[in-house]
């Protein structure tokens, strides 16, 4: 029991994910600054932002649904924490989790976005509602190819829906990324990840220049801090999920751990570079993009995986 609490609260759960998430968000800001030929913030910037927001006043707008408004950020945070715990327990010991944890992780990864939608609609602000409805459309668009490409590792690893077995298969037979179907699936996964993290070019729900901050517009103080923290933890958890599915995870023996960390950092830098070199698309363009070419690519990847290429 005590062990389970430790898993959820300290290592690989909340505390660990939060610290790494805040640091990776700093990498995001720093690389962005360097791309724009600026100096960028110091490494503790996100910690300062977080503590500052905790010390501020929380305002619940008049006429909003108070309980839903205040609880929505907690839902998202809890979901991310559980996903991170599951992923890292799998990485540490592939035999430690249960059958079907891939499905559980896929469901839980959607919950932060749903929390944003709930919070946005509960805050009784027209711009927040607009942002929440856009977020909903975005989820509908990227979930289809994202679920399809999750079949590729499952098929290659012999029909298992357990992350541990997918990982063991990759340790024994080489990473899924090195096969053609795995490569195509990985490209689709990176695009879907960008939309899942709602970063440019798919930051349509919180488009700063047109609808201010979208669903977050009425949030202030600690509730905003929790939302920001959830997003920063997602920036750590979602790439880790792809590392487990396609790149063979992280091995904890000697030098291999550095190679594992490098995989994550490379993925993070890819995200940041996509974010810095693209303009924002409209929501209809995003839906067309994900349901058209991306889904087609995902289907091709699944078919190739079925043929064993």
């Amino acid at each position: 029991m005590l062990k389970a609490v430790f898993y959820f609260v300290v290592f690989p759960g909340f505390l660990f994910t939060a610290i790494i998430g805040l640091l990776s968000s700093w990498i995001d800001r720093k690389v962005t600054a360097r791309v724009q030929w600026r100096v960028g913030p110091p490494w503790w910037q996100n910690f300062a932002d977080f503590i500052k927001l905790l010390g501020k006043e929380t305002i619940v707008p008049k006429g909003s649904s108070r309980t839903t408004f205040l609880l929505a950020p907690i839902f998202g945070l809890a979901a991310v924490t559980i996903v991170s715990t599951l992923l890292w327990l799998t990485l540490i010991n592939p035999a430690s989790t249960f059958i079907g944890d891939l499905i559980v992780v896929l469901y839980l990864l959607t919950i932060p976005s749903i929390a944003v939608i709930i919070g946005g609609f509960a805050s009784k602000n027209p711009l927040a509602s607009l942002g929440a409805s856009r977020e909903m459309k975005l989820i509908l668009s990227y979930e289809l190819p994202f679920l399809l490409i999750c079949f590729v590792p499952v098929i290659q690893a012999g029909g298992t829906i357990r992350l541990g077995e997918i990982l063991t298969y990759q340790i024994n037979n080489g990473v899924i990324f090195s096969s053609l179907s795995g490569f195509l699936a990985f490209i689709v996964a990176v695009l879907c990840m960008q939309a899942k993290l709602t970063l440019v070019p798919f930051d349509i729900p919180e488009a700063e220049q047109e609808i201010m901050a979208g669903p977050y517009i009425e949030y202030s103080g600690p509730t905003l801090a929790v939302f920001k923290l959830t997003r920063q933890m997602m920036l750590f958890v979602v790439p880790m999920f792809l590392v487990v599915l396609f790149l063979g995870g992280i091995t904890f023996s000697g030098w291999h751990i550095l190679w594992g960390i490098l995989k994550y950092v490379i993925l993070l830098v890819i995200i940041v570079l996509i974010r810095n070199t693209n303009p924002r698309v409209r929501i209809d363009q995003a839906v067309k993009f994900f349901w058209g070419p991306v889904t087609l690519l995902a289907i091709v990847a699944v078919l190739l995986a079925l043929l064993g290429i």
Partner: protein
Amino acid sequence: MNIKLKSLTKSLWVFHFASAPCNNCDIEILDALTPKYDLERFGILLVGSIRHADVLLVTGMITHKGAERLKRLYEQAPKPCLVVAVGSCACSKSIFKDSYNAAGPVDGIVPVSAYIPGCPPKPEAMIMGVVKLVKSLTGK
């Protein structure tokens, strides 16, 4: 120094309110955010919603219409919220001293923490204003 105050001074998020300005001050504010001056290295960000803001930056001559909005914005901001008046018009009435539609300088409407005079003030002057604001907060 307590950690709450220290983190506040290290991450000031700015909401920009322009009430009938001639846009010179606004352009200079944007200048301070460009790569040359790069205020993000001090943790200063421009945010789109007043609920996220720590600093309410006011430019321009406050008109009777603008005064109502300014009051409401100040009430909507989560406390602690600092108000900074940028430019001669916001600091005093400047050349609109006898104008019929001037509702007064910013400090006649909401409490102001820092004044940055100039027509328009240079980005360097704004950075100096921010430094003075931080110093007044920490009491050094």
